[in-house]
C-alpha cells in the first residue's frame, strides 16, 4: 500500500459562528447566515476582506422548502465578498462534504480563508403547511433515485432508517430502552446549551410512551426542524500568525463510500456509509478511538448516532446495546461525552454543522457550562444511510 498523504493537516479551523437558532423565527435565511459568518469572522480575528472562498452544502435548492434556501451567491452578494474559489452542491460525502471541499481548496492554494456555511429555515417553512422532511409530497411524480421508496409509503428518512434499526435489533438484540439513551443524553446536555430548542428533561418512561413515527423509531428518535445558520472558517496553516487564537487542527477526514449508493441495496443492512467513512478517517492518523475526548455524531435520528458510534470503533460491531445501556458512558461524566450541545435531537437540526461547531467550541474550551474538561481530541460526523463523512479535530498541541 502506498504511503497515505494526509494533506488535510495543512488546513485549520480558524473560527466558528452560529446564528440565533429556533422554531419559526420568521427571519430570512440571509440574515441568519450573515449573523453566523460575522460571528465566525470575529472568532477568527479576520475581516470579510480576508475571505476569498465560500463553500456550502447542498447549494441553493428551491425544494424541499427551507432545507437549503441559500447558496454561495446569496452570501457573496449579501457581504460583498470577492472570491477566488467557491463551491456549493449536494453530491459530496455527506453534509460535511462542503467542509472537505474547503479544506481541499486551501491546501491546493485556490483560496486562503474559506467560509463554510449551512443555513436552514425548515421550521419557518413548515408554517406554510409544507414539510421539508417528506419526499414526494409535492404535486409532481417521482423521478431518479428517489422513485424507489415513496410509492410504497416510505416517504421519509425516518422510514428508511427504521428499516436498518429493525434489522440491527433483530440481529444484535438492541432494545428500545438502550436506544433511548441517545435522545435522553442529548436532552440532558441541551439543558446546558442556551441555544437548544428542547431543554426539559426526557425520562425513559416518556420516551417509551411517545407516539410511534415508524417503528421502532418514536417521536423522540427524530430530530427537530429549526431555523439557523452555522459558519466554519477554514484557513491555511501558514496563516496562523494572522489569527486571533490558536486554531483547531484537522487531524484526518473520512469521506469514503464503498457500499452501494442506495437506501436498500447495501450488502449489510446493519451498516451505513459511516462504516466506510470512519475507517478511512482512522487510516489517516495514529490516534485511536480511545484518544477521543468528545464525540459529536449525527443524530438526525437516534439510530444514525448509534451507527456512527459503532463505525468510529467505540465498541465492536453489534455491541451498541451494551455500550449504551444506562447511558453512563455517553454522559458528560462518562468515557465518551456525546453530543454535548444536545445534538439535533434536542438542539435543532443544523444539518451536520452543529457538530463541527460544538467540537471546536469544546476544543477551544469555550463550551461554557457544558465544557468537557481538558478536551483535546474530538470527532464530528454527519449523514445517514448512503450519506456520510467525518472529521477528527484536535487542539493546537
Amino acid at each position, binding site marked *: 500500500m502506498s504511503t497515505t498523504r494526509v494533506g488535510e493537516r495543512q488546513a485549520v479551523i480558524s473560527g466558528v459562528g452560529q446564528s440565533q437558532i429556533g422554531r419559526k423565527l420568521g427571519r430570512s435565511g440571509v440574515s441568519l447566515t450573515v449573523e453566523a459568518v460575522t460571528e465566525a469572522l470575529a472568532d477568527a480575528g479576520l475581516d470579510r476582506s480576508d475571505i476569498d472562498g465560500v463553500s456550502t452544502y447542498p447549494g441553493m435548492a428551491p425544494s424541499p422548502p427551507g432545507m437549503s434556501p441559500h447558496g454561495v451567491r446569496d452570501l457573496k452578494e449579501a457581504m460583498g465578498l470577492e472570491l477566488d474559489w467557491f463551491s456549493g452542491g449536494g453530491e459530496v460525502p455527506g453534509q460535511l462534504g462542503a467542509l472537505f471541499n474547503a479544506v481541499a481548496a486551501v491546501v491546493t492554494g485556490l483560496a486562503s480563508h474559506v467560509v463554510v456555511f449551512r443555513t436552514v429555515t425548515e421550521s419557518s417553512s413548515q408554517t406554510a403547511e409544507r414539510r421539508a422532511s417528506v419526499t414526494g409530497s409535492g404535486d*409532481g411524480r417521482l423521478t431518479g433515485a428517489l*422513485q424507489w421508496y415513496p410509492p410504497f*409509503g416510505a416517504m421519509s428518512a425516518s422510514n428508511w432508517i427504521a*428499516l436498518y434499526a429493525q434489522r440491527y435489533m433483530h440481529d444484535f438484540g438492541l432494545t428500545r430502552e438502550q436506544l433511548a439513551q441517545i435522545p435522553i443524553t442529548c436532552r440532558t446536555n441541551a439543558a446546558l446549551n442556551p441555544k437548544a430548542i428542547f431543554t426539559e428533561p426526557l425520562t425513559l418512561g416518556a420516551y417509551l410512551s411517545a407516539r410511534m413515527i415508524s417503528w421502532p423509531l418514536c417521536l423522540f428518535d427524530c430530530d427537530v426542524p429549526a431555523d439557523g445558520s452555522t459558519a466554519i472558517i477554514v484557513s491555511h496553516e501558514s496563516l496562523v500568525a494572522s489569527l486571533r487564537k490558536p486554531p483547531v487542527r484537522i487531524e484526518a477526514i473520512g469521506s469514503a463510500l464503498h457500499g452501494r449508493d*442506495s437506501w436498500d441495496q447495501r450488502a449489510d443492512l446493519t451498516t451505513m456509509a459511516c462504516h466506510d467513512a470512519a475507517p478511512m478517517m482512522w487510516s489517516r492518523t495514529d490516534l485511536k478511538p480511545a484518544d477521543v475526548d468528545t464525540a459529536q455524531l449525527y443524530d438526525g435520528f437516534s439510530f444514525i448516532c448509534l451507527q456512527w458510534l459503532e463505525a468510529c470503533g467505540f465498541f465492536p460491531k453489534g455491541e451498541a446495546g451494551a455500550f449504551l445501556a444506562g447511558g453512563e458512558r455517553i454522559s458528560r461524566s462518562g468515557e465518551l461525552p456525546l453530543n454535548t450541545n444536545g445534538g439535533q435531537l434536542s438542539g435543532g437540526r443544523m444539518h451536520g454543522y452543529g457538530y463541527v461547531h460544538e467540537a471546536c467550541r469544546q476544543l477551544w474550551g469555550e463550551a461554557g457550562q457544558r465544557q468537557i474538561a481538558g478536551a483535546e481530541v474530538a470527532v464530528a460526523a454527519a449523514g445517514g444511510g448512503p450519506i456520510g463523512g467525518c472529521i477528527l479535530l484536535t487542539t493546537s498541541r
Partner: protein
Amino acid sequence: MNMAPLPLITDENRYFWQSGREGVLRIMRCEDCGWWIHQPEPVCPVCLSEHVSPNATAGLGTVEGFTVNHQQWVPNLDVPYVIAIVELDEQVGLRVMTRLVGVDAATAAAGGVQVGLRVEVEFEQRDDVWLPLFRPVAPVSASLEQAGEAS
C-alpha cells in the same frame, strides 16, 4: 385510500412499474454475465456489458427488514402499514423496498412480521403504475415456522 406519491413512468423504468400489468415482476439483468441489476443501470456494474434487459423474476423473496409506519405524511394515507425490504430469490442482495399486504400492522412489531418471512409479489394498480407489493406465501405463522426451519 393510499395517496403515496407515484413514479413518473419513462422508457427507462416502465419495465418495472408496469410489469405487473401481466402479473410479473421484472428486474433488469445482464444478458452476458447474468447479474441482476437493481436499481437499474444501462450498463452491467459487474462486466460492463451494455447488453442489459428486463427479465421476469419468480416474484418470491424474503423479508430482510421492516418498519411499521404510523405517521400521516400526506393526506389520505391509511396508517399504520408495514414497509419492508425484500430480497428476491434470484440473487443474494437483490432487494426491493415494498409494502407488505396480508399482514396485521398492529401486531407486526410484536412478532407478526419477522426477518426471514417468505413473501410473494402481488400488484396494486394506481393510475398507470402497478405497485409490486408482497404478501406472505402462507399464513404468517406457518411461513415464519418455515423460515425458522430453513435458517
